[in-house]
């Protein structure tokens, strides 16, 4: 019982419930929704679930980077554009090298894309940490500039290329799972290890909660902020690679379009507060999976494209409301002891503790 209680309080719980409900809804419409088949020509598995996992990979990447930016109480609006930049660099590199079977060309494309992404992120970080611009403004500028850079790279074309190894990123499978999804999870685990095994995660949270006190405790915020924005953009570039490898074309105006909003939603659903502070990597990953499930569900249910944003909005608002302790207490008819009007400064240790993943 108390285990169940603490599970309900876990920030990502309602995201997971949302995924299950959406899948149940789809299965209700088509009992074969969850079925997994084998494609006779390629020998690969296919099915709706695998589709969802594949399209979730880029969202997981940008949500992961966004988690740390938001934890420092910043925001990164440029991730969608940086995805386009990453995709453009990769496609342009591959079409220039014109080596359809070369793994070397693939590695070159990946390296250049991630490198340019990281540079753009470092610029964001510099504007925020050194110049002191607001994150919203700095990354808004980069969001506009990013699309322009992508266009310059491809000369305004929607460049396509042929490279079998690169195409495998999104279309290949490992143990029956989409390769891009497996790579995304590996990256999530690696970064989670870096965050929690070093003190980087702690310092990010500390800066997000109280930057002034963190400085007084001897933490230098600048290198940490620059690291966080650089990481976010590098991950966005990887997300761009996953996206373009699906169709081997970069759409300079469409790739990653408005994906920054998906990333922010995934982070919020995952339980990281937009005010900064404690972050949950697992939560953001589940949030990203939910967004992917939602995107696929909208198509599957045949929701008219005009109504799609409204449908998404309703699902998300319900989730966010369920996460709010206040709403839950209201629904359960319990009275609230929470002090809503006064900042908790001199309050003795009497308040119920919030669960933090």
């Amino acid at each position, binding site marked *: 019982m108390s285990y169940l209680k603490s599970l309900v309080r876990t920030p990502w719980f309602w995201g997971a419930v949302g995924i299950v409900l959406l899948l149940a809804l789809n299965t209700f419409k088509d009992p074969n929704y969850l079925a997994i088949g084998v494609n006779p020509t390629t020998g690969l598995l296919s099915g709706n679930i695998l589709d969802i996992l594949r399209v979730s990979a880029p969202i997981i990447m940008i949500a992961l980077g966004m988690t740390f930016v938001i934890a420092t109480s910043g925001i990164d609006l440029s991730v969608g554009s940086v995805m386009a930049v990453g995709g453009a660099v990769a496609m342009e590199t591959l079409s220039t090298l014109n080596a359809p079977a070369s793994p070397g060309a693939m590695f070159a494309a990946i390296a250049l894309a991630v490198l340019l992404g990281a540079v753009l992120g470092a610029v964001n970080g510099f504007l925020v940490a050194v110049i002191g611009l607001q994150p919203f403004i700095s990354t808004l500028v980069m969001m506009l500039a990013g699309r322009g850079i992508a266009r310059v790279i491809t000369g305004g074309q929607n460049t396509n290329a042929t490279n079998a190894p690169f195409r495998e990123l999104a279309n290949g499978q490992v143990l029956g799972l989409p390769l891009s999804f497996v790579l995304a999870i590996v990256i999530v685990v690696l970064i989670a290890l870096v965050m929690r095994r070093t003190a980087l995660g*702690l310092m990010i949270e500390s800066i997000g909660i109280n930057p002034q006190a963190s400085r007084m*405790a*001897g933490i230098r915020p600048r290198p940490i902020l620059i690291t966080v924005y650089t990481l976010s953009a590098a991950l966005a570039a990887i997300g761009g690679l996953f996206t373009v490898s699906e169709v081997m074309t970069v759409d300079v105006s469409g790739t990653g379009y408005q994906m920054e909003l998906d990333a922010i939603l995934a982070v919020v659903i995952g339980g990281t507060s937009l005010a900064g502070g404690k972050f949950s990597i697992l939560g953001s990953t589940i949030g990203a999976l939910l967004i992917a499930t939602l995107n696929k569900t909208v198509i599957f249910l045949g929701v008219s494209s005009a109504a799609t944003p409204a449908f998404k909005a309703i699902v998300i608002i319900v989730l966010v409301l369920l996460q709010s302790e206040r709403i839950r207490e209201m629904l359960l008819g319990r009275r609230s002891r929470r002090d809503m009007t006064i900042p908790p400064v001199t309050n003795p240790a*009497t*308040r119920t503790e919030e669960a933090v993943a």
Partner: protein
Amino acid sequence: MTDPTPLAEVRNVSITFPGVKALDDVSFRLLPGEVHALMGENGAGKSTLIKALTGVYRIDSGAILVGGAQQHFTSTASAQAAGISTVYQEVNLCTNLSIGENVMLGHEVRGWAGINWRRTHAEARRVLGGMGLGHLDPRAPLSSISIALQQLVAISRAMVTESKVLILDEPTSSLDAQEVATLFDVIRRLRDSGVAILFVSHFLDQIYAISDRITVLRNGQFVGEYLTTELDRTQLISKMIGKDLESLRALGSNRQVAERDRTAVPVMSADNIGRKGALAPTDIDIHRGEVVGFAGLLGSGRTELARLLFGADRADTGTVRVDGKKVVIASPRAGLAKGIAYATENRRDDGIIGDLSIRENIMLAVQAQRGWLKRVPAREVDRLVATYMERFSVRPNDPDRPIRLLSGGNQQKVLLGRWLATEPELLLLDEPTRGIDVGTKADIQETVAELAEGGMSVVFISSELEEVVRLSERIVILKDREKVGEVVNGPDVTAESIVSIIAGTSEGESA
């Protein structure tokens, strides 16, 4: 003598939080035209009682009566509607609005086309005038006046609703003596007009200066209600902490002032250190194992000097030597690297990281010193956390609890642990005993003495001159952002002699 009907009364109230009985059968009454002090250590239940009275918390049993009629508060708004107004420790005003807007917020005078600002400001001026604040321009931005005046504006705001009951929760904690005097004038004026005032403060002098009656709480229980004239300080303190005060007294009288060789190389020596707008160029030497007191009023430059020594602010004149070597300390990080630690007077903004646990808050500075790559090993963290939580008996004894849930005194203990964990050579303590209870105060004073005996140099800053005199070997006196004197402590140095130094160097203005 028969007492008149109380304006507000709390009768046998209990409030239970998960695992804690915050208030246990507590009664409290506020008579018209009196200042009633609510006293108790941190965690005694003062805040909880105030929050019950202002509708923030709901009571489990007992009754709250206002003007003799039972009330069931469901929100702060319902308490305000019943005529209870509150001014909290931290000023809750909007600094970007004008003074008048703040005073009248929610009670603006409305005309046929929305708010009539001219009349609203005129009304604000009338209310301010009634408080003896007629010299303030209601149209000036709130941020243009001092914190003390803002506090008074907050009280004016409470008076707009014509409240009969006014709760002042630690209104004086950020005021200097002059400002306290102004505040007390206003309080007396309100009291004489029949308002019942609940006053909470940690400063005993102020309690005796302003209150007519004292109610003491301890551990959520009612200890007693007394007339201020019938309860002397020693009695009051022993009722608050539930034991006699021999230990506290012993500390002051027995502290031996060692003969110190001041020709040795100082741990820290600053020449002409200063910063425009903060501190006039000042010299200071601090020797090993010495406790140096910084005495002065709020705003005298005592905090500014400590911040320059630590590197929290950058000095724009002067040179600093640590152990005889010339250094530049341009950031807190650089200060830490040179073995300097600074425990801030502003715990909320510069000290605690609210959502992080006690454990993380204690180890934060040590971790920052090592950089983010080298995480402090778990075993070392556990050892440090156990050491300092035990040494200061931090309550609750649960290192995983977020620090924001702790009382002010316990937060202070955790922060002291944070700085001691860095094993500094020089510890700068800025108002370490402000806003905390008597027991913790004695703990901290004792710790300072122990640390100095162990060879650490300590700078001790406090508004309470008695405390500075009791602990320090040498006292640096500041006034108006300038060092005005320095005395070696001895039998003839008292709080009074320090005050006279401060007073003597001004143009006829005394503290």
